């Protein structure tokens, strides 16, 4: 039978094959994991719909498959009909034992295993060496720890002689290269990020400006907010406050809440304020969106951000949660890095980078130096749409509001 790619939900029409669990000729049990596919948001493991043998896999890992396309053709066995769970109950009793594999007689010794001690096998794994391709120098071809070191030493020559490798490309050196460098297909979320970054870099003319804000007042303001919220068992991070302030300023600097329609040759100024927030995840960067942030209270923005960030990390967000932003904020300071030059979330015009709050020396007007809480900020903008003065004025306004929470509350929308 031919198996067509099913609709995996969420209105998506295609997905990328990340990993086949089986190959052609393998036999498969119903519900055994068959293939991992990756959509924009998540990796989904699809179990086998039938028991039988795999005749043909029509897509390779890395290929994109559309809903309705034939992906696999199965050879199903006749005894595939689901077994009735209500099999006639014989009175033969400790039958439980008869059905169960005996507890003894357990082994995984197989003819094809590599001759090496457990410690050497682990060492190979740690060094990323496929022990099966290492030729052992010990008795009977045993792979020794020294053989792994020799194997690891080989790629140095390979790197120096990359040209000759390409021209000669002998099979044995290719093997060494494979054994040393891990190669994995660029698929799924990673591929999407790569494409987006390359498009942004290729189109937008990106310039970054930096500022430093004294935020003693903001720190105190947030502490007071959290004392209040603490009674409800909640906490607010700086991000909701900064997002609200940014939205307020975008009302005064509308060209930063815009995009360039290259085909039409028009600058599109967006009426709505949808703020994208970059979320770091092991699976790859995600940018969920707080929609219409100017219609939400600070408390609501906090709740929405909590939902989006958790959703991004557990890969449970829906398409609307991940699309439609008009301006983006990246809070790189939570991990580290005093300054960064964020890349524009294309086709937007601006992206605000928020650095860490740290105690730093501040020079007062009377030239005295004192320690104060300061925050670094960076704004990357598309120089095709706005100029440096416009962007700097936005950033300076931001610094002023963050320094003075009273003014901030007045401007917040």
């Amino acid at each position, binding site marked *: 039978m031919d198996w067509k790619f099913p609709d995996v939900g969420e209105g998506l029409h295609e997905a990328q094959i990340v990993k086949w669990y089986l190959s052609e000729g393998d036999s498969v049990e119903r519900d055994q994991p068959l293939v991992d596919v990756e959509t924009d948001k998540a990796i989904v493991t699809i179990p086998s719909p039938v028991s039988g043998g795999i005749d043909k896999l029509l897509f390779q890992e890395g290929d994109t498959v559309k809903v309705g396309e034939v992906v696999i053709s199965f050879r199903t066995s006749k005894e595939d009909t689901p077994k009735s769970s209500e099999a006639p109950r014989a009175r033969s009793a400790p039958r439980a*034992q008869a059905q169960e594999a005996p507890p003894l007689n357990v082994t995984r010794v197989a003819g094809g295993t590599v001759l090496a001690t457990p410690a050497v096998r682990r060492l190979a*794994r740690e060094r990323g060496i496929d022990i099966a391709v290492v030729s052992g120098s010990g008795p009977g071809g045993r792979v020794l720890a020294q053989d792994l070191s020799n194997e690891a030493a080989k790629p140095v020559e390979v790197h120096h002689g990359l040209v000759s490798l390409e021209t000669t490309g002998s099979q044995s050196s290719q093997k060494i290269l494979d054994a040393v460098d891990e190669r994995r297909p660029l698929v799924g979320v990673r591929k999407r990020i790569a494409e987006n970054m390359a498009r942004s870099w290729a189109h937008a003319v990106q310039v970054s400006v930096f500022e430093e804000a004294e935020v003693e007042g903001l720190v105190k303001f947030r502490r007071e907010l959290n004392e209040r919220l603490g009674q409800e068992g909640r906490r607010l991070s700086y991000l909701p406050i900064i997002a609200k302030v940014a939205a307020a300023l975008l009302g005064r600097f509308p060209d930063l809440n815009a995009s360039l329609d290259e085909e039409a040759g028009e600058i599109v100024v967006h009426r709505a304020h949808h703020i994208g927030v970059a979320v770091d995840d092991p699976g790859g960067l995600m940018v969920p969106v707080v929609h219409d942030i100017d219609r939400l209270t600070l408390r609501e923005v906090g709740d929405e951000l909590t939902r989006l960030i958790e959703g991004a990390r557990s890969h449970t967000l829906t398409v609307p949660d991940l699309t439609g932003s008009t301006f983006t904020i990246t809070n790189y300071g939570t991990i580290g890095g005093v300054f960064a030059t964020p890349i524009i979330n294309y086709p937007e015009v601006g992206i605000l980078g928020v650095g860490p709050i740290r105690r730093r020396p501040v020079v007062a007007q009377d030239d005295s130096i004192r320690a104060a809480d300061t925050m670094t900020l960076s704004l990357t903008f598309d120089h095709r749409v706005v100029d440096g003065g416009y962007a700097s004025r936005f950033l300076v306004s931001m610094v002023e509001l963050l320094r003075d929470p009273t003014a901030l509350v007045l401007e917040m929308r």
Partner: protein
Amino acid sequence: MVVGEFTQDADLLVIGGGPGGYTAALRGAQLGRTVTLVERESLGGVCLNVGCIPSKALIELSHRFGELPALAKRGVLTDGARIDRAAIAQACQVSVERLTSGVAQLLRAADVEIVDGTAVFSGAREVRIQAPHETSKIRFRDCIVATGSRPRGLDGFEVDHVTVLDSTDLLFRREPLNRLIVIGGGYVGLELGTAYAKLGTKVTIVESLAEILSGVEPEIQRTLRTQLRALGVEVITKAVLGELVRTDDGCSLALSAKDVDHSIEADAVAVLVGRLPNVDEVGLSAVGVAVGTDGRVVVDATMATTTPHIYAIGDIVPGPMLAHKAYFEAKVAAEAASGMKVANDAQVIPAVVFCEPEVATVGVGEEAAREAYGEIVVGRFPFRANGRAVVLDAVQGEVKVIADAASSRIVGVHIVGPEASNLIGEAVLAIELGATLEDIALTIHPHPTLSEALPEAVEVALGRPTHLIVQRKASKPVST
């Protein structure tokens, strides 16, 4: 969200405090993780509380008592020796408590937070904890599921702890038992049946298959049969169970075996017919964790399930339900979850049975070896030719070693005899290291010990034993 429900975060969450669970927690802590462990009953799981540990205490005491008549024959007279069941039950309990409190101490020292309750998955990164008086939630970064297994029941033989007993009843029983029927001739049935026989109970073991301890080498089954007969244990194989009727002085079990109907009178029946994995109640399928047709959780070589950040180990994943397998898998899972490049590539998992005499096996049997390797060599050495075994008056049994003829690599070792459980360790190491027959033969073993039996069996396989007379075959070249 339920009102009043409290959510906490866990870096590494371990579900189950048995051998797999507590080992995973300890290894996670060693690797710098902040570990939370959820246990619904007692730390130590089945193994420490109602399995390996108390059963070995009972078996050991019954073994010592059973040796007394033989000792008397050799001049150690212990007239009037008798059994105090209450004191034995107490001794079993003491060994349990010492070990479980040891586990609790280890976990405390590793700063593992222990949460009492039953965990059920409520999201891909979240479990709900049901405790007697409250529920809460734990959000985790990584989770290792080690929920173990429970005894399998038998229709028509529902455990009532009076006439129909489970293994726990047998372990902690304070009253003597005159006649006991053991249903199930697997390792638990043999272990407890043998222990009870040594304590003076008339034991009948009933098994539906053709042989007891199905799956082990036929030599082992033969030795066990002989020993069981000597202990007065009756073994009925190919049995088809009939009805169990309660009588005034116990019960009567009807059964037919080899077309002959029997009726066996006894004080009680013990149902020891294997174990079932605790998978369904954990709610794994709700978060996309694939479960195989065998009812076990599907995992890869790193013990990862089909759902990211969720690992599974021990009795709920494929393979024999043995604590030492869980220990090993626990370390692999904790290391993989912590970003180490590891995999479970253990070549063999040994199995031991504490019956009379002990059984221990590792690797493939003769038949399976012939299928896998074609030509094999086999060496067998009986304990009656081992000096120490003779001194111990424990000469029943033998060591059998199987090697691939082409490479001389050892692929299976099967021991039935004294201290088999302690002797098998060397064989496991030999197979894991890829040792050949020559490697063992060229290793000096201490004399006089039972450990000499393995190199002797190896020398038999190599055709040059020291302590056995080899019948020269006519086909062999005669030396000039």
